[in-house]
C-alpha cells in the first residue's frame, strides 16, 4: 500500500518544491520507490530540481488530464538524473511547462476527479512506496483533493507575516478533512531566530507539532534550482533536519 504525502504551503516562495524534491531523494536514498507529482499546474518548477529538460518530457500531467495518455506515460524515471547513487527509484510526473498548455488548462479547467484516479493508478502500477504531491499554493480544488486523499500532509510556512493567516486556514481545513498526520515545517528561518522559540510560538499559534525548523541556508539557496541539496550535502545541518522529517513521514 503506497502512502500519499501532500506538500503544501498557503503562499508561494516557502521552498515547498525544494523540500518536496529533497524529501523524495532522501526517501529514495533509503531504498523507497517514490513518485512525485507536480500539481502546481499554473507555475510548474520541480522538474528543474530533478534536471529534467523540457525535451525529455514526453508526456505531462496535462496530457493525462486531457485524456491524451495514461498517467504512467507521464511518469519519468529521474533516478539517474540525481548525480548520486540511490538505492530506490524516483518517478516524476511533471506539469507541462509549455506556456500554451499552461494557459489552456487554466482557461478550460479539467476534471479534478481524474487526479484522484491518476494518483491511485500510478501508485499501484509503479508499486510506489510513497507518492509525493507538490501542490499549488492556496486552497483550490486540486489542493483540497490532494489534502483529502493524503495519509500525511506537510504544511510549510516561513516566519513571515504574509504566511501566518493562510497557514491557520490551511491547518483548520486539513483538520476538517481528517488528515491522519499533519507535519508542520517552518522553512527559511533567518539565522537570527532562535529555533526553539520559533517552534514554541508556531506550535502555540496553530496547535500543531512542528516537525522541523529549517534555518535559511545560503548553500541551499545557491543549489536551490540546480540539484538536490540533501544529496550534495549529506552531512549539512539542513540535510539532517530533512532526514528527521523523512523519519516522521515513515513513522
Amino acid at each position, binding site marked *: *500500500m503506497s502512502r500519499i504525502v501532500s506538500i503544501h504551503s498557503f503562499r508561494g516562495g516557502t521552498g515547498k518544491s525544494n523540500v518536496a524534491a529533497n524529501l523524495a531523494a532522501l526517501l529514495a536514498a533509503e531504498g523507497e520507490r517514490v513518485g512525485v507529482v507536480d500539481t502546481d499546474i499554473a507555475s510548474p518548477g520541480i522538474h528543474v530540481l530533478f534536471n529534467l529538460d523540457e525535451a525529455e518530457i514526453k508526456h505531462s500531467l496535462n496530457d493525462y488530464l486531457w485524456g491524451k495518455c495514461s498517467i504512467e506515460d507521464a511518469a519519468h524515471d529521474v533516478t539517474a538524473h540525481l548525480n548520486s547513487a540511490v538505492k530506490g527509484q524516483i518517478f516524476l510526473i511533471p506539469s507541462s511547462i509549455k506556456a500554451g498548455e499552461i494557459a489552456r488548462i487554466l482557461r478550460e479547467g479539467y476534471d479534478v476527479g481524474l487526479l484522484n484516479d491518476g494518483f491511485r493508478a500510478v501508485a499501484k502500477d509503479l508499486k510506489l512506496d510513497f507518492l509525493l504531491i507538490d501542490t499549488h499554493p492556496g*486552497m483550490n*480544488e486540486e489542493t*483540497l*483533493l490532494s489534502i*483529502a*486523499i493524503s495519509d500525511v500532509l506537510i504544511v510549510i510556512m516561513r*516566519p513571515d*507575516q504574509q504566511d*501566518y*493567516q493562510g497557514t*491557520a*486556514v490551511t491547518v*483548520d*481545513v486539513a483538520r*476538517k*478533512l*481528517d488528515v*491522519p498526520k499533519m507535519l508542520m515545517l517552518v522553512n527559511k528561518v*533567518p539565522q*537570527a*531566530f*532562535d529555533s526553539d*522559540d*520559533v517552534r514554541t*510560538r*508556531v506550535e502555540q*499559534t496553530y496547535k500543531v507539532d512542528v516537525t522541523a525548523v529549517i534555518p535559511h541556508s545560503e548553500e541551499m539557496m545557491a543549489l536551490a534550482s540546480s540539484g538536490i541539496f540533501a544529496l550534495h550535502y549529506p552531512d549539512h545541518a539542513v540535510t539532517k533536519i530533512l532526514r528527521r522529517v523523512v523519519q516522521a513521514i515513515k513513522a
Partner: protein
Amino acid sequence: MPTSSEKELAKIIQAVRAVGAGEYSSAALQSLLKQEGELGQLAHAVDEMAHGVLSRDHQLQLLRRVIPVGVSLSVEKDFNRLLETLVVEAQSVTNADAGTLYLLEDKTLRFVILRNTSLKLMMGGTSKNEITLRSVRLFNEDGSENRANVASYAALTRQRVHIVDAYETEGFDFSGTKSFDAQTGYHSKSFLTIPLEGKEKEVIGVLQLINAKDADTGEIIPFADDDVLEALILLASAALDGYIREESLRQEIAKLRIEVNESHRAKQVSEITDTQYFQILQEKARELRSKHK
C-alpha cells in the same frame, strides 16, 4: 687600581648600557647625581636622556600593544572570544594571575569569564567549562544597594576599587572570594576592580583583576596604574558596548510575532468548507479512509 673618577665613569657607561637594554633606573646613578662637577653634570644629562627614552619607549609599547588588541577586539565576531580576549589582555598588561569579567544584565552582574593562571582554571569564554560561580545582585532583597560586594560596589558607584589585601580589608564582603580560596587552595590577595562603561556612560560590566605579580620575584603586589591598561579598557568597553547594542537590536527583531486574525480565520475557513465541492470531498475522504483502515 682604577681611580675614583674612573670608577664613576664606569658607572655612567654602565648606566648608558642599561638605557640601551631598557633596564635603566635613576638609582644606578644616585651617588653621581648629587655631585656638582663635570661627572655630576654628565650623570644628570644621562639621567634626563634616559627618562626621555623610557617614556618614548613606554608610548611605543602602548601603541604596539594596544592598537593590535583594539583592532582584534573591534573585529571580533565571536562574543565569547571577545570577552576572553579582554580578560587575557588585561591580565597580561597588569601581570595579574587571575581575572574575572561580569556583564550587567537586569541589575545583576553575571559572571561570564573566570581565568586563573596558576590554578589553570578557565570558565566561560571559549573554554567549554560552564561558570559555576554565582551572579552578584546590585540590589539587596529590601531594595537597598548591595555595596558589600566589591564588584557591585564598583558598578553602583562607577568607581574603581584597589584592594591591597582582600583578607586585611574592612568594608567589603569577600566571602565569595574566601570560599573560592577554601575550595581551591588559592590565595586571593590584591584586587583591581574596574567598572566598564558604555557610550552613554552606563555601566555594562565589571572587570576584576586579581593578584598582580612582581615580574621578577613573582611576589603578589598591589596593582599599579598603567596607561596601557587604561587604553585597553577604553577600547574593550567600546567593543563590548557595540556588541551588546547590536545583539539586543538583533534579539528585538528576532522575536517572532505570529498574528492571526481569528474572526477572519473562521470566515476564510467556512468560505472553503461551506462549498458543495468541499462537502462532497469531505464525505468521499471519510469513505476512502474508512475503507483503507
